[in-house]
């Protein structure tokens, strides 16, 4: 038996190791967050160019007394281009003009259209608009137009010259990038956003929650409180534990064979995505719910039986409410895992370019982690910051879900 001094030293050593372990994991986390936020914050700001747009009737090809529908049909692309040309006084050839037009974003014409449709009385005058710049201008501007940025950029010397001229005329500014939050997937980084993917994730998670919560919790209650303990239930238990460790892509294959192949559900739909994710989270939900039920003291059950309650009454009036915090935590953690999953969605066609946000469960939808994966694979340079930005959005959602788990647990524990 070592002496007191030696034992104290042992404790001290253990504390140091513990602290070191925490320091290492914290520094990994800090490194991850710093690098993601460092690249990702750029996704939330964008560069805009102020253009004087000539909306006189002659210019936009309308006549006095035009109908509002005609306003949507105006060729805004050429209107924007005319506005760009007016910014640069010199005469430009065809090639040079094309280079000039590349300063403005691919979505500028649609931005202008929406603005004009919202305020039809602007028609007839020359109006100044801030329109989103192209991704190359955006990157260059955000890098601070330094020497280093000059070497990185894809802009030509001539384009940089134009940019500097616009900058000195106060026609370039940065603003909050609402498009990133309200837009859907696009191949043009300056108009790409996470909205479509967020809706898809939300739909899929809703389906997943409904299925896995009901089925999972009911299965857990039955197995724990009602089923007899015999070989058969032991066999089930081993299988459920096994399923929880199965790689998630397997559930995708299962979904492909059963939901798409056998039931004939539509490909890429968030309904199928939710069902596949539910298959994946079910074992987790069942296991954590059973653990929560086991943790309820047997004396509670005995007391209920003692005053004549039936088994169903005992379980639903006394045991389940007490186990609720644990059941909820398990379910929400299962959901959080489902939110971050791409592999099972790959097989059922949710990893795809889907530009329209889904409006129903059967429409094609993608999901947030899928969006991260697709953008990380895109050749355009500006998608690097969009990728990190989408990761940030995903992290915020995960944080909110975990927060919800904590709040619910507190509430039910009272």
């Amino acid at each position, binding site marked *: 038996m070592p002496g007191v001094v030696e034992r104290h030293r042992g404790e001290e050593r253990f504390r140091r190791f513990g602290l070191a372990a925490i320091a290492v994991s914290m520094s990994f986390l800090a490194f991850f967050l710093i690098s993601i936020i460092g690249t990702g914050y750029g996704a939330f700001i964008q560069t805009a160019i102020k253009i004087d747009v000539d909306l006189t009737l002659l210019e936009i090809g309308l006549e006095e007394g035009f109908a509002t529908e005609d306003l949507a049909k105006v060729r805004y692309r050429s209107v924007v281009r005319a506005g760009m040309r007016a910014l640069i006084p010199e005469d430009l050839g065809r090639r040079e003009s094309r280079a000039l037009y590349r300063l403005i974003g691919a979505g500028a014409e649609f931005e202008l259209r929406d603005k004009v449709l919202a305020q039809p009385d602007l028609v007839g005058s020359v109006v100044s608009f801030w329109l989103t710049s192209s991704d190359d201008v955006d990157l260059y501007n955000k890098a601070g137009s330094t020497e280093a940025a000059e070497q990185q950029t*894809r802009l030509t010397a001539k384009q940089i010259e134009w940019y500097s001229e616009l900058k000195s005329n106060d026609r370039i500014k940065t603003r909050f990038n609402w498009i990133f939050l309200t837009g859907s997937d696009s191949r043009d980084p300056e108009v790409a956003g996470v909205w479509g993917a967020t809706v898809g994730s939300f739909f899929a998670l809703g389906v997943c929650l409904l299925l896995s919560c009901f089925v999972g919790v009911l299965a857990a209650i039955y197995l724990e409180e009602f089923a007899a303990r015999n070989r058969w239930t032991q066999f089930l238990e081993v299988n459920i534990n096994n399923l929880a460790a199965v790689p998630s892509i397997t559930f995708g294959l299962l979904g492909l064979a059963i939901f798409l192949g056998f039931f004939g559900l539509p*490909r*890429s739909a968030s309904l199928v995505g939710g069902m596949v994710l539910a298959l994946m989270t079910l074992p987790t939900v069942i296991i954590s719910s059973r653990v929560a039920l086991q943790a309820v003291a047997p004396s509670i059950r005995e007391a209920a039986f003692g005053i004549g309650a039936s088994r169903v009454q005992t379980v639903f009036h006394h045991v389940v409410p007490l186990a609720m915090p644990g059941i909820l935590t398990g379910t929400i953690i299962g959901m959080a895992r489902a939110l971050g999953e791409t592999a099972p969605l790959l097989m059922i066609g949710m990893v795809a370019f889907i530009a329209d946000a889904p409006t129903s469960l059967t429409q094609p939808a993608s999901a947030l982690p899928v969006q991260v994966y697709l953008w990380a694979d895109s*050749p355009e340079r500006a998608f690097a910051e969009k990728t990190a930005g989408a990761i940030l959005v995903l992290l915020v959602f995960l944080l909110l879900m975990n927060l919800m788990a904590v709040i619910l647990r507190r509430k039910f524990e009272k």
Partner: protein
Amino acid sequence: MKKANYPALMMAMALSLTAASQALARDEIRVVGSSTVYPFSTVVAERFGRSTAFKTPVVESTGTGGGFKLFCSGVGEGTPDVSNASREIKSSEIEDCQENGVQDIVEVKIGYDGIVLANAAGLSQYSLTTKDIFLALAKDVPDGNGGLKPNDAKTWKDVNPALPDAKIEVLGPPPTSGTRDAFAELAMESGCKAFDWIKETKASDKKRYQAICHSVREDGAYIEAGENDNLIVQKLDANKNALGIFGFSFLDQNMDKVQASLINGTDATFENISDGSYAIARPLYFYVKKAHLDAIPGLREFVVEFVSEDASGEEGYLEERGLIPMSGAEREEWLNNVLNFNSLS
């Protein structure tokens, strides 16, 4: 106590499932296939969705082979309408299609893609021949006596005395990638054919010929870097010794970070790939199910948009994304074929 009516809930769920499977009437175009064509297909899809009343087509990147598998699985709303490919459809795939009732397929060529071997910018540029590439990367190389020996070349100088004394280290796509297939076929095979006796085996023993020409060494000189071309570009930036294999569109976007090597003395430029003088270039296609032309709204218009001068013509918007358009005469010929929706014979 409120009792939840579980059986009724289950019923409701089952009902909504059947309702969903009946509400299948698909009004968006479904595209699957090659990850090389994906960046072009999606751009056309997005423009098409924005500028017409039709929905934006849904594009999945499944790889060329995986795309044909889905495409040929049958006719009907549950199957894709278009399959992208970074090579021509194989006869086995056509047979597979026909067995499943996909009779008429329209073939559309959209342009070319070059494969480049690049190293980090600012270093000395490599000038390789396809023979050098074969000798550096093949699993077995000729031993000079009409036989084969395992490839033991360590440096580029071992391969060709004119090349620098640098370790052979090539980052490239895995075997599942269409880029890898094309690289083996276009770069390795053409270098392989430079040896007469190997060329002669093609006629006598085609399997052996393919094994010699297409097998890539597995001793660490060729590093499989995954399907993500961005990752290869980043790794080249970090590893000054390495060469990377990827598509021309990634070179185009990252000219400041990487430089392409000369192949057989030709630079990997837009013009050289378009006129066919650059050796490692491949045609890109997509295939359309003729039976779907009238069933899926907008499919006809989507095909027309894809082949329009605005999209895949010289100076079209796909050119800005790195697609190399066909030259005028070849384009005319294809346009004729496509706009009449002539099926593959």
